[in-house]
């Protein structure tokens, strides 16, 4: 199919669709005007019924809490699938060298990048905690907080390089966070059933409106989502970044700090200062 035929086909199709598109565009409600009563109903009801001022959290964790449970397990399934697919192809050892792309030099990180990353990673992590903890009062919540926390950890990779990132980000911790967070969300719903209430019913005291610790069971669910999203995102980053290191033969012992070429060790000073026995964690 030549470009000319393709263009003709596209123009024909566009011409046929044009009346329908124009009809819809002309009958759309004005920008910002919506005919959806549910948002207004939640805005009116949630402060009194659930004592929270962030309606998005009220919908996610309470009114539609069961939907979020489904999303939680969707995330769990996606992360598990990614980890199962990617883990093992390059071994699970720590401290392996970062790979080199032919024709592209492995330059040392500039001091400015290292400084900016070291300054901003803790600040970003603190912001993530703030966003996650204040889910019931201000915009944000567990998903956003967890994703920002994972982004803060990525700054470690940017600033310290692959060995520094691997030294800090250990997959068992994040496996536990991902699985434990999902389990916390799924299981906390059963606690209400023991009291004779429906699954995921909000049975905890709701607290004071506009207080950080308002919302009752929503706080527990929010914590579960925070751990699951933060752990899940970081696990996926870890498994993907592991694909960029030097491949290790199955029968080769793990790379130790003293095996690393002096120039590479100079670039990643962190390895020389804190030599790590990589084989022990394999």
């Amino acid at each position, binding site marked *: 199919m030549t470009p000319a035929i393709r263009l003709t086909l596209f123009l024909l199709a566009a011409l046929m669709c044009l009346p329908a598109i124009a009809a819809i565009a002309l009958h759309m409600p004005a920008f910002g005007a919506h005919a959806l009563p549910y948002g207004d109903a939640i805005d009116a009801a949630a402060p009194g019924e659930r004592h929270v001022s962030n309606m998005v959290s009220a919908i996610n964790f309470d009114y539609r809490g069961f939907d979020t449970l489904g999303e939680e397990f969707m995330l769990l399934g996606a992360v598990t699938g990614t980890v199962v697919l990617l883990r093992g192809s390059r071994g699970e050892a720590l401290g392996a060298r970062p790979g080199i792309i032919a024709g592209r030099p492995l330059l040392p990180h500039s001091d400015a990048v290292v400084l900016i990353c070291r300054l901003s990673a803790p600040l970003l992590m603190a912001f993530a905690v703030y966003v996650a903890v204040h889910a019931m009062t201000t915009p944000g919540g567990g998903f956003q907080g967890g994703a920002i926390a994972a982004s803060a950890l990525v700054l470690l990779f940017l600033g310290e390089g692959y060995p520094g990132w691997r030294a800090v980000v250990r997959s068992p911790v994040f496996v536990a966070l991902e699985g434990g967070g999902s389990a916390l969300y799924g299981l906390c719903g059963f606690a209400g059933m023991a009291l004779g209430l429906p699954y995921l019913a909000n049975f905890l005291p709701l607290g004071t409106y506009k207080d950080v610790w308002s919302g009752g069971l929503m706080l527990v669910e929010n914590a579960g989502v925070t751990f699951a999203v933060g752990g899940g995102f970081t696990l*996926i980053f870890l498994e*993907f970044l592991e694909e960029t290191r030097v491949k290790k033969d199955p029968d080769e012992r793990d790379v130790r700090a003293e095996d690393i070429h002096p120039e590479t060790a100079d670039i990643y000073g962190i390895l020389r200062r804190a030599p790590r026995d990589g084989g022990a964690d394999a």
Partner: protein
Amino acid sequence: MSLVIAILLLLVAAAGTGVVFTRTPRRQVLAIAVNGFALALLFMALQAPDVAFAEIAAGGVAVPLLFLTVLASMKMDRSPRPGSEE
């Protein structure tokens, strides 16, 4: 519709068009990140900060990072095929 929203809508349209017309994969990844940040600004202007946070973290950080990693991994020491270009 205020002027800010009009400008941001145009910015999103321009960034999205940029993604389509970028042909090099590595540049396209950066174009996707720019588009993500433009979308986040638009969501913020439309008073949806929850979505804006998620868009910055997912569209501005996670997706570009994963794509860049895959591109780097593909160029790395995969078993070299005879006659390959690089």
